[in-house]
């Protein structure tokens, strides 16, 4: 396993585009996640400028336990950046035809796919670890008092966030293997939300019960949007294991379809 991961990383670590995309992604993830308070302050100044007096800096964005879900959800918005990296990585193998040489050199098609899947696992893990670190640090800084174990509520959103990223990267990898061209794959990746949305809209009237089973829907619902709680609405504040099961099945299927496609095509 480590060997295959090393092979894929060796391909990427001398590739400038890899560092550029990953750099932007992790920079945005870390800085974005850490600067929410500054954002709120700026927002409140803006609102004051309009002569209103709401103290939104009171919103406990970074207080334990809210911070867990708040950051896990926000981090999830950025996964497209990482997915584009994955698409570039796999479609390069087709456009340079290096996938062909890898197999001629003695990789099996399974091993080739696994090397990409392991990289996806690594990228998802690093994302989760970075976000978890930011949440812990900001939580410690901003929380008025530390009340554990209550403060840990919602920490299970981190494995869910990991699954969210990994599932989406698996989807991107599969699309890349089916489409082979980077531009088209990225367009499809962006449009897949729209396509799923249109199907959901049309189905909503007579079969709403199957909507949670849609792939992107299930991935998005792993960490639900938390901010509604600040306007006193009920939110889902714990991981729904049914959603985890659905997203896991989709993740498996994405990788399995990619495997089938690789297996039967001439390279």
């Amino acid at each position, binding site marked *: 396993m480590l*060997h295959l991961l090393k092979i894929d990383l060796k*391909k990427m670590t*001398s590739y400038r585009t890899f560092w550029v995309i990953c750099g932007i992604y992790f920079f945005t993830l870390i800085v974005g996640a850490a600067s929410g308070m500054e954002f709120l302050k700026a927002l409140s100044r803006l609102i004051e400028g309009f002569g209103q007096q709401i103290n939104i800096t009171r919103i406990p964005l970074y207080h334990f336990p809210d911070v867990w879900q708040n950051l896990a959800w926000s981090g999830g918005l950025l996964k497209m950046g990482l997915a584009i990296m994955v698409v570039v990585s796999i479609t390069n193998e087709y456009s340079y035809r*290096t996938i*062909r040489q890898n197999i001629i*050199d003695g990789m099996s098609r399974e091993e080739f796919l696994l090397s990409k899947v392991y990289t996806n696992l690594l990228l998802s893990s690093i994302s989760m670890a970075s976000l978890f670190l930011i949440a812990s640090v900001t939580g410690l800084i901003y929380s008025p008092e530390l009340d554990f174990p209550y403060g840990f509520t919602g920490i299970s959103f981190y494995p869910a966030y990991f699954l969210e990223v990994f599932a989406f990267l698996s989807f991107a990898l599969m699309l890349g293997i089916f489409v082979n061209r980077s531009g088209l794959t990225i367009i499809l990746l962006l449009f897949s939300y729209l396509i799923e949305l249109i199907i959901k809209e049309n189905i909503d009237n007579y079969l709403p019960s199957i909507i949670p089973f849609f792939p992107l829907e299930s991935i998005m619902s792993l960490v639900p949007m938390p901010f509604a709680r600040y306007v006193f609405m009920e939110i889902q504040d714990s991981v729904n294991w049914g959603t985890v099961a659905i997203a896991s099945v989709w993740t498996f299927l994405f990788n399995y379809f990619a495997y089938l496609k690789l297996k039967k095509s001439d390279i």
Partner: protein
Amino acid sequence: METVLSTNKLTKNFGKIRAVNQLDLEVKRGQVFGMLGPNGSGKTTTLGMLMGVVNPSSGSFSWFGEPATHHTRKKIGAVLEHPIFYPYLSGQKNLELNAMIKGADPAHISKVLETVELADRKDDKYKTYSLGMKQRLAIASALVSDPIILILDEPTNGLDPMGIAEIREIIKRIAADGKTIILASHLLDEVQKVCTHFAVLKRGTLMHIGPVDEVGKGEEIVEVQAYHDDLGVLLQEFVGSATIRKENGIFEVMMKDGFHSKDLNRFLFDKGIVASYLHTRKKSLEKQFLEILADHKS
């Protein structure tokens, strides 16, 4: 001798096109095996199947007497059609990657770079290489695992005459090490110089398979020149002449079976003529190749 490769009715269809048709090949250890055939005759497709990148439609093949797996491929060094590398990596890094996949000792890399004379450019990015340098790097990558078998598909494509000669030397040196080589090429002269055996494909079907040194057997061609006005007429009197052609003032006499240049020389001498030029030629592979393809034309 030990059989290294054998194929059994190996077939590949691309839609309606049958690229390879019921191919039966056998390659033994130590052979330098030339694969010949016109464009589109299925050479690359055959090698692609043998190297696991093209799925056969039917039939089978075995390396070293066992059904092939990806582990088998690690013992084979192969370059099909074009050199394939990561353009943004240096030659050295590309070879490191090849070595990692093959499970080869990275210490070999500097040695194979010496072999193909690329050592001084190894840290430059692959995309900055000239075509000839890319070809050389490809040969280096095929050699990096010290393979028992080498598969080269038109390795001299696009090289200058010096490059071609150098690659030929490399191939000969590798063959002298006792390695088995399978070489697809359009340069029949090349094949005749380096190969021990050859096969001819036409539209995916095997037309001929056999040793190269048999090609020269049979008829001889003798080129003669002499200061004599009626040399052409005289030569026709010679009992050993099958056909006679004149080219650039030189007569080419195709000998009948059992006659050799010394018989012709003696005949001329008896007539009181001394040849100023006498040269014996074996039939070339090129000629035989064209005959094989023509024979089956129907």
